[in-house]
């Protein structure tokens, strides 16, 4: 088994009477794509929120490359190498697709010179290539608010990749996208992750996507990992068929 990149130990968090994380312990290995599946309200997004520092657990710890990152704010966790793409793309809507990437890379490397033109930064070509990698080269000069949801999703991922992360957490990368486009988007996305050599964790509801693109699957239920295994093992498990896929066994 490959190296452990991120590890959670006994995470607990409650929202009122709802336990969103109930003693969650999980290891994420470098170089593998882990899919998280489970019914709505199982705590999948909460898990991503805890791993990226957006929510602090009431108990437990998160380690990234052996360092305890539990108390750190998201911006400091980003600097360690953990990036995030969102269910609803979090982009700068008044800027173009290319500008979103330039801002991302500027945030990483170019905050010292107040007179430097952002469009003239050395990484401009690199960012154009990144847009090309996610299949959005044509959208480079289009203001984000004018783009289709699928393109926005891909650009959201490209923005995260611009930070050169080691681990990318994706929350429902194909939600809100037409069924006919889901596989095409995932194909582009997984290809880009492979090219950038980034480990990924993605929350997903479409079992076809999970089966095809995940190396491992973790099943969430009632705030904890119920099962973990290969897509073939998990998707044929009777509990998963009953609780997640929704078919009568």
């Amino acid at each position, binding site marked *: 088994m490959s190296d452990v990149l991120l590890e959670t130990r006994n995470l607990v968090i409650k929202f009122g009477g709802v336990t969103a994380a109930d003693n969650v312990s999980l290891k994420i290995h470098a170089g593998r794509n882990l899919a998280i599946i489970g019914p709505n309200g199982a705590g999948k997004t909460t898990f991503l929120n805890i791993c*990226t520092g957006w929510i602090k657990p009431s108990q437990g710890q998160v380690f990234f490359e052996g360092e305890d990152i539990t108390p750190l*704010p*998201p*911006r*400091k966790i*980003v*600097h360690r190498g953990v*990036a*995030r793409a*969102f269910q609803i793309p*979090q*982009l*700068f*809507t*008044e*800027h173009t697709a290319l*500008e979103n990437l*330039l*801002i*991302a890379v*500027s*945030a*990483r490397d*170019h*905050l010292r*010179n*107040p*007179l*430097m*033109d*952002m*469009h*003239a*930064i050395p990484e401009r070509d690199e960012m154009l290539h990144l847009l090309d990698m996610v299949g959005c080269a044509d959208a480079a000069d289009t203001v984000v608010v004018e783009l289709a949801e699928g393109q926005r999703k891909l650009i959201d991922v490209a*923005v*995260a990749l611009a*930070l050169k992360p080691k681990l990318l957490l994706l929350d429902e990368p194909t939600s809100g996208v037409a069924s006919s486009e889901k596989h095409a988007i995932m194909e582009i996305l997984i290809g880009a992750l492979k090219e950038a050599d980034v480990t990924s964790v993605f929350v997903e509801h479409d079992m076809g996507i999970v089966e095809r693109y995940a190396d491992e699957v973790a099943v969430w239920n009632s705030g904890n990992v119920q099962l973990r295994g290969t897509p073939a093992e998990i998707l044929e498990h009777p509990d998963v068929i009953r609780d997640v896929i929704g078919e009568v066994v």
Partner: protein
Amino acid sequence: MSITTEQSKVNARMKNPLFLLWIIGTLAIAAVPFAMPSLQLLVSFAMAKGLGVLGVTVLLRAGQVSFGHALYFGISAYAGAFLMASMPGTDFVIVLLAGTLGAVLAGLLVGLFVVRYRGIFFGMLNLAFSMIFWSILEKFYHYTGGADGIRLARPTVLGNALNHVQFELVLFYTGVVLMVALGWFTTRWFASPIGQLFQTIKTNETRLEYLGVSPRRALLSGYLLSAALCGVGGVMMGMAQGVVTPEYVWWVRSAEMVFIAVLGGAGSVQGAFLGALIYEFVRTYASVYAGDIWQMILGGFLLIIILFAPGGLIAILNSVFNRGSGKGGLDK
């Protein structure tokens, strides 16, 4: 960026009628002391006020409205006045720098607190700080001169004691230089990585945090720039008027800055100065010819702008001069 690209950018700019209009406008302003000397002081006031408005404009780019930025206008003017009172004969440049420094330091102290808030809370907290300072100026009469204010004696200029007319001329051309230089700097800053990050506060702070940037720190950077610009404007106004009063930080002055920023074109560098110039003209001549109803005239003017040209005067000019070229709106 290649030299060819840079050259083509410059060529494109030179062909832009609006850019040429700004050059002509600046040259026309520079000619005022000789062509229309009676307007010299009015234009000096407008340029000083325009610098303060530019400070408010910076914050508007991040979607934040400050209803208390006259605080920095006043602090710098009082800093200049106190400096001149304690060290008579101080040089003009030193007064300018000291006033600006005072505004930046105050901006840092207040900014560290207010950048935690957004929207109406940000606006009102700025107002609260400006009113606290106004009260201090009013109540500590023995130090501040109370409502009468204190005199800002005429400083020397590079070691030379100038007469009234000469000093006003120096002040006027310093205003022109500052307007062009700080307008250029602010435009460049908006286009820089830090300026772009600052402006994203308006659209998505969550993503900003997930880019590894503190939104508060990004806002603070712009807040300090805005305080500095207001500071430069305030000390210039103080030297032009020769007296500094608590009216400099009164809430009406802050509201006036927001008013002018909207009038000129919220978020536009050129709009800040254009708005200030037109505001000063309308205010001066409306108060002469329309007595007590000049505020009504200004209010009506703003109402028309908001209803029919929400992008302000600058958007009207953009649509007139860039019609057909597909250009318009504000530079990001």
